[in-house]
């Protein structure tokens, strides 16, 4: 971490302590969207941290973004998800959009607006290519029809990236990506979902009914949709790892704080407890490094798809383990406090942005790939 990154991380920590931690429980309870946060974040322009400088943003590197997201995850993963999902949607445009699209899409982020990434449908969860949403060319427009569900930020976003089939017969290869604005006629917003965790993060169902989108909003070419979605998710997955690491670290810190308060006379607990706490920190640090490594690969423009899947799976598994273990160590104190939120938040993170099972498929594919260079045969009985 260089000094600039350290300063950014510190600023994020202070922002989180002031604006997120004091309100997290209240918004978790109500499940209402934390709109106040967008206002509070305006002066720092943190919602534009991933917007390139040429489009007026802060242009933070992937690792710097991860440092900020870990701090936000430390405060509240529901609120951090709003920031993370907004960046995720923008990455689609940055990966495959033209200059005009990038400029247009990034504009709301400069003033704490948010975006949303709409891929999932009732019939297309892990099987992302099985959707029924269609986009039919009509003059200079495309007409979009179909449902989208579990869309993070979907009811609050100023802009969305929406995936729909321009060629149904081609399945996943017929998918295309469009920039959609919720003010466009035919965008019908459903209820927000009441979730187990990340409750104040806005999750909605929406329906597109003859929604007319200018052809200028097609990102890349027709049929590029699945490639764009996969590349976007590659970029986004380690950020979920960052949120999860923040959550796990928060849990461990709160657990230690509680144990110190409850057992003030014991400077050192018994070995069983010491080791359990150590194991929690081992897991957290491992997940943190896996995630930073992914960011560095990305910055070095090296392949990072596998590392990205590892960072997401490991980070969220660690968050689930650590939150569960911390509750076991704190017992009823945790069960009757805001602590339950940490466990509930961790569970949701194992599912969204590609379930951990889908990540394992990706990872296994690389584990089982034939080696590029044949390994020397093992010599049996050699000295």
């Amino acid at each position: 971490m260089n000094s600039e990154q350290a300063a950014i991380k510190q600023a994020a920590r202070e922002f989180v302590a002031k604006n997120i931690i004091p309100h997290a429980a209240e918004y978790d309870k109500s499940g209402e969207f934390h709109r106040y946060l967008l206002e509070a974040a305006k002066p720092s322009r943190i919602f534009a941290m991933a917007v390139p400088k040429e489009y007026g943003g802060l242009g933070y590197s992937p690792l710097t973004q991860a440092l900020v997201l870990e701090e936000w995850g430390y405060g509240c993963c529901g609120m951090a998800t709003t920031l993370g999902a907004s960046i995720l949607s923008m990455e689609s445009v940055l990966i495959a959009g033209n200059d005009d699209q990038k400029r247009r899409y990034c504009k709301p982020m400069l003033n704490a607006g948010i975006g949303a990434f709409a891929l999932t449908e009732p019939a297309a969860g892990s099987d992302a290519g099985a959707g029924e949403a269609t986009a039919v060319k009509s003059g200079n427009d495309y007409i979009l029809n179909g449902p989208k569900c579990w869309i993070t930020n979907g009811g609050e976003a100023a802009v969305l990236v929406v995936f729909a089939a321009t060629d149904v017969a081609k399945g996943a290869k017929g998918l295309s990506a469009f920039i959609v604005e919720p003010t466009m006629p035919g965008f019908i917003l459903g209820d927000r979902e009441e979730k187990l965790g990340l409750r104040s993060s806005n999750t909605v169902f929406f329906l597109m009914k003859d929604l007319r989108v200018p052809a200028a909003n097609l990102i890349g070419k027709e049929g590029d949709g699945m490639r764009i979605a996969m590349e976007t998710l590659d970029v986004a997955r380690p950020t979920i790892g960052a949120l999860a690491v923040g959550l796990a670290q928060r849990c461990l810190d709160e657990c230690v704080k509680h144990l110190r308060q409850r057992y003030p006379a014991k400077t050192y607990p018994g070995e069983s407890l010491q080791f359990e706490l150590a194991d929690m920190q081992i897991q957290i640090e491992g997940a943190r490094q896996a995630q930073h490594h992914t960011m560095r690969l990305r910055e070095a423009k090296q392949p990072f798809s596998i590392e990205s899947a590892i960072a997401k799976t490991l980070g969220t598994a660690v968050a689930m383990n650590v939150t569960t273990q911390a509750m076991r160590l704190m017992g009823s104190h945790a069960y009757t406090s805001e602590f339950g939120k940490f466990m509930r938040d961790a569970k949701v993170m194992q599912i969204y942005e590609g379930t951990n099972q889908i990540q394992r498929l990706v990872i296994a594919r690389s584990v089982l790939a034939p080696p590029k260079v044949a390994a020397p045969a093992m010599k049996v009985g050699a000295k």
Partner: protein
Amino acid sequence: MTYYLTRAQEALGQRAHAFADEFLEPIAAELDRGLVFPKALIGPLAAQDFLGLAAPAQSSVEGAGFIGHIEVIQALSRSSAGVASIVNNHALAVYAIAYWGSEAQKKQYLPALIKGEKLGAVAIAETGPTLGIGPDALLATRQGSGLVLNGSKTFVRNAGAADVYLVFGIIRPEPDNTRLTCFIVEAGTSGLSVWPRLVTMGLKACPVAHLSFKNVAVTEAGVMGSENNASGIASQILSVSAVASGAQTVGIARAAAEHAAAYAKHRVQFRHPIARLQAIQTLLAEMVSDSHLAWLGVQHAARLIQDSAPFEPEAAMVKLFLGRFGSKMLVDAIQIEGGMGICEVVPKHIAGSLPLARMFRDIAGTTLLDAPDDFPDKIIAAGIA
């Protein structure tokens, strides 16, 4: 009849299953809001003989015993682990009075508790590092021939709803006494107040609150067992509770596995129901194996309790095993259902019930609580000779 259950035990389990389907399933989501105590259920639960099984000699069900009790708890937990918590904590009081109460105390309390005319509760925990230490520890001082209680108890289940509390405290005529005494205190006794219920993560049908004692008078007849002799009672109650919580955990996990399996058979991705995927089959198989092995452990410990044999190491093993693997069963069940698994409210466009989010919060309560830093490992380790 199976080789491991009597006819009476098997019948109880079936009755509890039917009771849960008819009376608990329809209101489980509403009870999960934690706003009201389901007082109206106490009568019907008693009418089914579910409230007195922990006192085999007094229960009207012949041949049921503690095995019968866990059959009931397991079955009720399939629909509402919160209601099972109410029954469980009531049963701990029933068990303790039946086991350690004087003839007069048994006569005074057990018939009413078994018939559901009175509800029981046990108050052990305090906010200090150990019992008797801390500014609000529950201490008893002598006054005439009786005792006066001052201080507070925390995380008391059935608090506010119970009529009879078994309260563990320390008599402090001498400053260094650490041995517990158990007092029977009835609700409404002058000086006893129940704080507003705490917001719990799950098991919300069962209220949890602090009890505050201000000069609460207890006569000699209100001491259960003998003075300074209840430390073992408290630890055995916690062990019985671990076994009964294990039955709750198994009930929740079985219902969750069934729900997830049904979902997996129905949910089509990659052109087939996801139940065909090995990854999903493995998750389901692990869930069912873990809950099955846990159930064998729970039944074994319950049999020891029923036979009045030493059972604390076996109860601790249940606690240790489920502390590690219990909540994982719901972590995996939810994973199978994905977005549907995390729904607290069924979305409008979906038909059917989505109970896994509630079960996830409930199972955290049946597996992760009541474990101070080195329990249960210490009890098990102490038994290895």
